């Protein structure tokens, strides 16, 4: 099995498992994510509480599973906004060319020259901490990067004979974009999206860790790590297990993305 296919297989299994665990949370655990049990505070992992409990006696396994819904949902939201808008705009300006392309690219240059993390922190502080704001800010800040990437792909596709033939058959700009350009960037989109999900997951967890994302008592992996940070030397499970969930999911996404890149580009497939 080539490295690419191995990456797709391993990454695919990890990502599928994490998504299923999050989706099936109510089936997999009898505990609610916010159910407080003052008789079971900071209990280590056991048969009763598989991942232990936190400082309010909440079952950590349940909070990690339900937190996966939040964290993965946020990551998907960020990528959907950032990459979805970026791909659409990038392909549109690449196809349009001329002054539209020149103006759009100068705006992208300006946007990329500003450090995105600093802007994210400033915006999150300005509009107030919430998950919706987090998704909008991180998704919006990713748009310029993807505009540039997909614009170059559209420029290359625009010169392909089938696009010229479609224009010669009278296809409108919208039809060129919707029928001939966007479907042909799907492999690139899938590859980039998978890697971007890993990055978005880590970024969202980081912002939640510093209090700019999910707010208590909502379970979210970055927020769970934050809640467990003070007791990490003694009650390690409170921070380490949510941290492992972030790391494992990000690894799965990155492996899947790298594998897809190799598999979908036979010239670059390593054996």
């Amino acid at each position: 099995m080539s490295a690419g296919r191995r990456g797709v297989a391993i990454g695919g299994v990890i990502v599928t498992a994490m998504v299923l665990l999050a989706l099936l949370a109510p089936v997999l655990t009898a505990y609610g994510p916010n159910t407080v049990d003052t008789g079971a505070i900071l209990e280590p992992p056991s048969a009763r509480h598989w991942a232990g409990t936190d400082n309010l006696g909440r079952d950590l396994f349940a909070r990690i599973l339900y937190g996966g819904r939040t964290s993965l949902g946020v990551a998907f939201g960020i990528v959907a906004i950032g990459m979805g808008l970026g791909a659409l705009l990038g392909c549109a300006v690449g196809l349009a060319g001329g002054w539209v392309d020149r103006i759009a690219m100068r705006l992208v240059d300006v946007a990329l020259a500003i450090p995105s993390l600093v802007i994210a922190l400033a915006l999150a502080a300005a509009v107030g901490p919430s998950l919706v704001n987090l998704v909008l800010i991180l998704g919006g800040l990713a748009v310029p990067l993807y505009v540039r990437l997909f614009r170059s792909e559209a420029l290359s596709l625009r010169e392909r004979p089938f696009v010229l033939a479609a224009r010669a058959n009278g296809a409108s700009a919208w039809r060129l974009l919707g029928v001939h350009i966007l479907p042909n960037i799907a492999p690139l989109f899938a590859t980039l999206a998978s890697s971007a999900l890993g990055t978005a997951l880590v970024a969202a967890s980081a912002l939640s860790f510093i209090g700019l994302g999910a707010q208590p008592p909502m379970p979210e992996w970055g927020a769970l790590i934050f809640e467990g940070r003070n007791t990490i030397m003694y009650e390690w499970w409170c921070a380490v297990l949510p941290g492992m969930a972030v790391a494992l999911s990000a690894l799965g996404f990155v492996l899947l993305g790298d594998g897809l890149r190799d598999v979908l580009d036979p010239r670059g497939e390593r054996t």
Partner: protein
Amino acid sequence: MSALLEIAGLSVSYGAARVVSDVTLTLSAGEVLGLVGESGSGKSTLGMAVLGLLDPAARVEAGRIALDGEDLLALPLAQRRALCGSTIALIPQEPMAALNPTLKVGRQLDLVLRRHGKGDARARSALVEQALASVLIADPPRILAAYPFQLSGGQLQRVLIALAFALTPRLVIADEPTTALDMSAQGAVLDLLVSRAREQGVGVLLISHNLPLVRRFADRVAVMRRGVIVEEGPADAVLAAPCHDYTRALVAALPANAAPRCPLPVPEA
């Protein structure tokens, strides 16, 4: 034959570089005009100028392109685009790359017919099957259900010819339609293209490197060098007895003329 296409004093530039210079040509309905010349001589740029699909960096500096007496360069963009496919059709040079790899052939043909308002789905389907049958494609349903990569170059070029003629155009621009095909398919494809054109009274601008095929299928030929038409006339006469040095050089460069006429060595029994 009445003049279908009239190009008068056409000049096209890419920035400071003039790639088509003061070209004047006419093409009549039902006529095949061969346009020959080396790579970079401006043949394809001329074809794209007629279609109105010049690269954004290119600019028509002067001249007139008229189809049935109507100045195409004076038309609004939307009106010009509406002519593409329906009145002026293109047969591109790389059949393997000229269809969208992500769509089935039938869907691609249907999209073009729908764009030009050719009836409902049933009518379009009948028109597509009829178009494929007219280019002697066996088993049209199989071809329509296939993706481009599942078909041979010859089959795809027939599909493209069928598509070009399905909308009953007045003018077909065939931009090196046989370049990507093997020798056996080249003659058959051009034979088909030219016979369809003559049946429908369509003018064909046949852009090609292949002088023997142009001589065989074109009524007239124009020889282009560095953006300028250096010689024009009946294909047979021009290619049999060229007047211009450049045309003579092109004809002399044909393998049959250039290679020393000695028999291939035959190994002894």
